[in-house]
């Protein structure tokens, strides 16, 4: 499909990348297949499961509902970049400690979504946490451990005890 190829450039996890992509290539396919950033997962490819959640220009998006070409000039952050930067280290530690993941396939998207809630500050209620994560499907945990982990990090960041 070279006749529909587009040259795009963006910053991904702080690195500048310039690639030629098919117009139809989704952001998550570009990240996974083009850049080998396999931490963002593909679960449903129609915007329901949230496994492909990444950050574009500071906002979380579904990597399967956005085209790579739409990210020309954007700043994209994935689980790999957020991990290496240390921004979500406390969330990751809480997920590990609380066993808030089993198969782990939803986890990168879940943590990116949780960080989106927590970066606003304050200690959200459990209902608010559940509501914010309601676009991220987890088949394993039943969600309670995830809510516990996110709540404990919110409290810790606010200076309270976990």
């Amino acid at each position: 499909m070279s006749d529909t190829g587009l040259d795009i450039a963006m910053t991904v996890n702080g690195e500048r990348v310039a690639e030629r992509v098919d117009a139809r290539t989704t952001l998550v396919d570009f990240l996974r297949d083009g850049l080998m950033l396999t931490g963002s997962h593909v679960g449903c490819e129609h915007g329901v499961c949230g496994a492909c959640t990444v950050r574009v220009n500071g906002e979380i998006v579904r990597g399967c509902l956005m085209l790579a070409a739409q990210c020309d000039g954007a700043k994209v952050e994935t689980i790999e970049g957020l991990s290496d930067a240390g921004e979500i280290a406390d969330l990751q530690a809480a997920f590990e400690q609380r066993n808030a993941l089993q198969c782990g396939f939803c986890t990168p998207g879940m943590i990116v979504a949780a960080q989106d809630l927590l970066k606003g500050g304050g200690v959200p209620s459990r209902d608010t946490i559940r509501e914010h994560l309601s676009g991220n499907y987890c088949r394993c945990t039943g969600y309670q451990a995830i809510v516990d982990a996110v709540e404990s990090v919110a409290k810790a960041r606010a200076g309270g005890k976990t």
Partner: protein
Amino acid sequence: MKIVEDSSPVLTALDRPNSYIGRAVPRPNLKRLTQGRGQYVSDVNLPRMAHVAYVRSPHAHARIVKIDKAAAEKAPGVIAVVTGAELAKVMTPWVGVLTHLKGLKSAPQAPIAVERACWQGEAVCAVIARTRAQAEDACELVSIDYKELPAVTDPETALDAKTPVIHAAINDNLCFERKLDVGKVDDAYVSSDAVIETTFRFGRHTGVTNEPRSIVADWNEGEQRMTVYQGTQAPHMMQDLFAKHLNLRHDQVRVVTKDVGGSFGIKVHTYADEMATVALSKLLKRPVKFVADRIESFVTDIHARDHRVRAKIAVQKDGTITAFEIDDLTGIGPYSVYPRTSGIEANQVVNLVGGPYTCANYRAQARVVFTNKNVMCQYRAVGHPIAVAVTEGLVELAAAKIGMDPLELRRRNLIADDAYPTQSASGLKFEKLSHHEALAHLDAMMNYAGLRAEQMKLRQQGVYRGIGFASFIEVTNPSAAFYGVGGAHITSQDGATVKLDAQGNISVHSGITEQGQGAEAVLAQVAASAFGVPIERVRVVTGDTDNTPYGGGTWASRAAGIGGEAAWQAGKALRANVLAVAGAMLQAKPDGLDIRNGIVVDATTGNERLPLEELARVAYFRPDTLPSGVQAELMATRHYVPRGWPFAFTNGIQASYLEVDVDTGFVKLLKHWCVEDCGTIINPQLVDEQIRGGIVQGIGAALFEQCLYDERGQMLNGNMADYLVPMAAEMPDIECGHVVSPTADSELGAKGAGEAGTAGAPACVMNAINDALRPLGAKLLVDMPFTPGKILAALGKV
């Protein structure tokens, strides 16, 4: 950090210094997953790897008249277009039968349909291309002429004389039938005070693993060897099947299973498209990758639970249950799934109904029929959600009928805690269960009396809340009785190898697999405890048929109980071997020594004698300094299979508290409780999270999930926007409690915990909804899932 640790394990021989048994140790493999550094099969990329996409039948039943692949073959990036007839030359077909399910029959199934497609979604042609997108593009160019055939879609009429037979070679649409008649059911009806009868229906649903089924097959023509990267629960089983149907030896097939994005029974079966992918790799002599997309998952991942159960209970005024009777009918698609068969779920329903109770009169009939829908097979808690919902639904109906509290009625009928060993009316053998202790624990934990008072008070304000219960038993730790005796090459034993490295660390190699349930943590805990090192010094290796002892993998809640015991025994064996070397080095008797915290110590005083690092250094690098005749054996393998009991039954009881909005029909889940007895608890956090996750899957069945088909066999809601799954906002917090009755079949005493949640939750939710609506005179809700529409209909509002 709220970590539930509400029960201490029973420590006997396990009570070693530095024991990790019974501790909520974090899993060793989590960090890579939280950082996005896991390796799922969908992440695997190999040199020369091609991608396959399948053209799938749009019809539920059709003759394949002609396949024209010329245009597809010329499409950009296409490497090959392969039909079923062509692939049949590479791989032999299979038939999903087991000899111990007497009379069970099925038809040969090919990796890609040959001549006839039998369900909507069956692969009819393969397109292999450089990228998945190119393969999908070319699929559009494959031109297939179909002659549509009549589709059998209603199990109720599948056996009627005028219904077409799907497979002419097997004469009718009956796959399997079982009848059981124990005690005197008819006499019980005559002498009872009440007989209650209803028909339960269970929606056909599916696993919806977050990672779809994925496989990369790599045939190396130079080595004459197949390496398969597969998200599977049972690598050795798959090794056997790939070898068998490609006519290879086991040693020519390696199955590698790294991270698996959810399985729940979905990934323990033979899928035609995965078999085809392996065959295509052999045909094309290069790696081929197949990752199901979500739509493909809905029409090809096994479905489960499509059962209709007519059921009856007889009860006396004093609450004594005198009879259970069921007639189960289930439609399993056009083939019995290989190699576990599609007769097991109905067979389990027959086995399990009435299981927690003393009632000796039981009659059952189950019929399993073929239909032209996607295949059904074993999914988490196989048969249990149906049997438990039928039994517990009947029990609560009986309680309501005679005006007795539902917990009290259970107290009067549950098998007494001191009655073991015993068996159920259906013949299930129970070593030790704890129904009454579990019930008492639950009663206190949920403050049942307080909730009833709250419920009554709120009713007067027009708020309709319900409380529902479900006692249950669960099959775990299966012996060969499950599959092996029926002729399947599915091992019930498992092996573990523990070895000492040259720095004094150990690794555990096990035949069980990690599906996210925490199997690797359990192995590390058990091996560290048995051998005597800090858990940080244990590395776990699973999911590789080249590098693990032969084992069954993960299914039927067997990993901890069977694989864990093998690791325990192997750890003990290596400790003995290491102490023999230490004894030689220290001129001490080995039985006067122990290994604690990575150091050989004097067993009685605990005085440190020799660090493992030093022992390993000498044994590996200066064996010349050991006394003559001393040969260090620093690797030990042990295998384990339960022999005392065919299955280690667990038991428990769940409760649901919910509120029904009688104007909208929506159900709000307020709280859920579960008290469970899985024997020795190796890791309380992992057990509780298995229970919670399992409960939420069961809630999905009760409230949301159903694969909807029209009368032509077309699935109507094969996407995640239309097929609803439980999401965070609707789920309740779940409180877990435990009773601990270890099995004496193993030293660890651990039974399985993976499916209890799913077994009991649908029944609980059903009973709670009916309890909520009972004062309104609503019709009984016994047709899962309980959607708002059904609830409003039961209330007579629509």
